[in-house]
């Protein structure tokens, strides 16, 4: 019995390891090529590892190109998008779950129905609106679409539904106001979903491309993805340089994912429940 099961088990693991290698190859090659000296990555047969690893590409990114600036811009955008959306969405999500107010169900259903509208449909007027508000070519303009999100509200609402009403009523009997209840009772209880929401928002703001590409016109204001796309045109031949830029763009989000994996995966699973 045991020997019969051995072969399928080995095959299964061989397939999994192979799949994992194929999945990781582009990322591993990116890291490896970022340490190659100029010209080394444009050779035949292609090199898998740098002959003499060099940090030159990374040095160039910060000295010759403006990478520190782009890193700062991306961080600024992603952090402020995350903080603002946490406040706005957690308040709304909690209210939709636990506070009785007139028209609650109807408003919530309108929001859910709007999830089918693709973002591009409103993009052109949104650009014109931000232009009239003087927000085009500003960091604030990039953050605007992330400030409140229907999906974020939905996530918080689903989680907050599990708060027992007795807990809230007891606090009300003790004379606590609704803002104090939100801050002292609700926020600590829904903390896990807030971490999930924070990771989601940070990743999507950091990785977003189309909207910052539209809003930002000034090179000094570019976020990393926009800067990378524009640099990749001018520096096609500098493979090592571009790979070093890609590593620095991808690294923060990959580290964040590895550290907060469980919170992120919970978000993906919650998204699927809605279907």
């Amino acid at each position, binding site marked *: 019995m045991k020997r019969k099961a051995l072969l*399928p088990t080995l095959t299964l*693991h061989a397939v*999994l390891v192979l*799949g*994992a290698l194929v*999945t*990781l190859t*582009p*990322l591993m*090659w*990116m890291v490896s090529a970022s340490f190659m000296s100029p010209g080394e*990555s444009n*050779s*035949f047969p*292609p090199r898998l590892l740098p002959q003499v690893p060099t940090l030159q590409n990374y040095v160039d990114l910060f000295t010759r190109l403006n990478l520190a600036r782009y890193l700062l811009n991306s961080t600024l955008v992603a952090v402020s998008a995350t903080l603002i959306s946490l406040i706005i*969405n957690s*308040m*709304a999500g909690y209210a939709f779950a636990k*506070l*009785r*107010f*007139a028209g*609650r169900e109807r*408003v919530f259903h309108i929001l859910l129905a*709007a999830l*089918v*509208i*693709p*973002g*591009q*449909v*409103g993009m*052109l*007027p*949104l650009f*014109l*609106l931000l232009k009239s508000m003087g927000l085009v070519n500003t960091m604030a303009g990039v953050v605007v*679409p992330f*400030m409140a999100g*229907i999906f974020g*509200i939905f996530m918080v609402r689903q989680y907050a539904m599990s708060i027992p009403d007795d807990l809230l009523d007891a606090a009300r009997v003790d004379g606590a106001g*609704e*803002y104090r209840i939100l801050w002292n009772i609700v926020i600590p209880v829904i903390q896990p979903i807030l971490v999930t929401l924070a990771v989601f928002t940070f990743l999507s703001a950091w*990785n977003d*491309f189309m909207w910052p590409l*539209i809003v930002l016109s000034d090179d000094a204001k570019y976020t*990393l993805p926009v800067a990378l*796309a524009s640099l*990749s045109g001018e520096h096609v031949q500098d*493979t090592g340089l*571009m790979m070093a830029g*890609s590593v620095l*763009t*991808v690294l923060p989000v*990959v580290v964040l*994912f590895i550290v907060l*994996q469980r919170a992120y995966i919970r978000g993906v*699973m919650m998204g*699927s429940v809605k*279907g």
Partner: protein
Amino acid sequence: MRGVAEARQNRAGWAFVAPALALIGLFFFMPVLAGLFLSFTDFDIYAIGRPDTARFMGLENYRQVLSNPLFWQALGNTFLFVILGGPLSVLTSLVAALLVSAKRVRYPGLFRSIFFMPVVTTLVAVAIVWRYLYHPQYGLLNWALGAVGIHPVDWLGDPHWAMFAIILMAVWKNFGYNMLIFIAGLQSIPEDLYEAAHLDGAGGWAQFRHVTLPSLAPTFLFVGVMTMLGNFQLFAEPYVMTQGGPLKATTTVVLLMYEEGFRWWRMGMAAALAFVLFVIMFLGTLIQMRLQGERR
């Protein structure tokens, strides 16, 4: 007393949702409605400075979109990505989920994380990486294919191959997401169903066909619709990897909309394109719900 408490909750409720509703209303609902209005005008670069120069055009933009051969080519490219890339991606996700969920697997969490890794990476960065992997002379892919005797292909430079190259890259980037959803679906299948099938003498394949697949039907519908909606919006991959070329072979509807609206500033035309795409996506969703609903 009760009435006072209720009124207080009513006020608090509205106060808590007000910021979100105001932001979503101002920056989402209003632009969407304005977009519909915009699509009936000839709003262009002059109108950006002086909006009163824009004129109402009726359905003229829609007529022009539908008679523009480039639109039909972009729509065809987008459909290729949706119809070929979508199922390929879902299939890869399903296989990965089945492998990772097999009972005998050691370290399933590790494999799951590795397969999911591309999903969290920045699309622009990995699209640039893949551009080098696809390089006809120095790229890793042609070198690997050469090792098994396949002649080099100019992946991104040949109009016949470019969209397939983008599909392959997108499958790599996205399959981890649906894999997670399939894993959740597999975990929710009750163990007794398999035991009952086993007692009835069903082998591994029969169990897969008669227990696993039917139980996953709701998951398939969700994954199918979400993947389709995402794929219809293909933009950054062709923008970074091919600029829509060669010979417009990778120009998608959203890329066309971006160029019309934000490169040539023909915003009325671009808005019409966006609404045509929206209608197509909506119909696609209805068709999938109908088809998959029937199969159940």
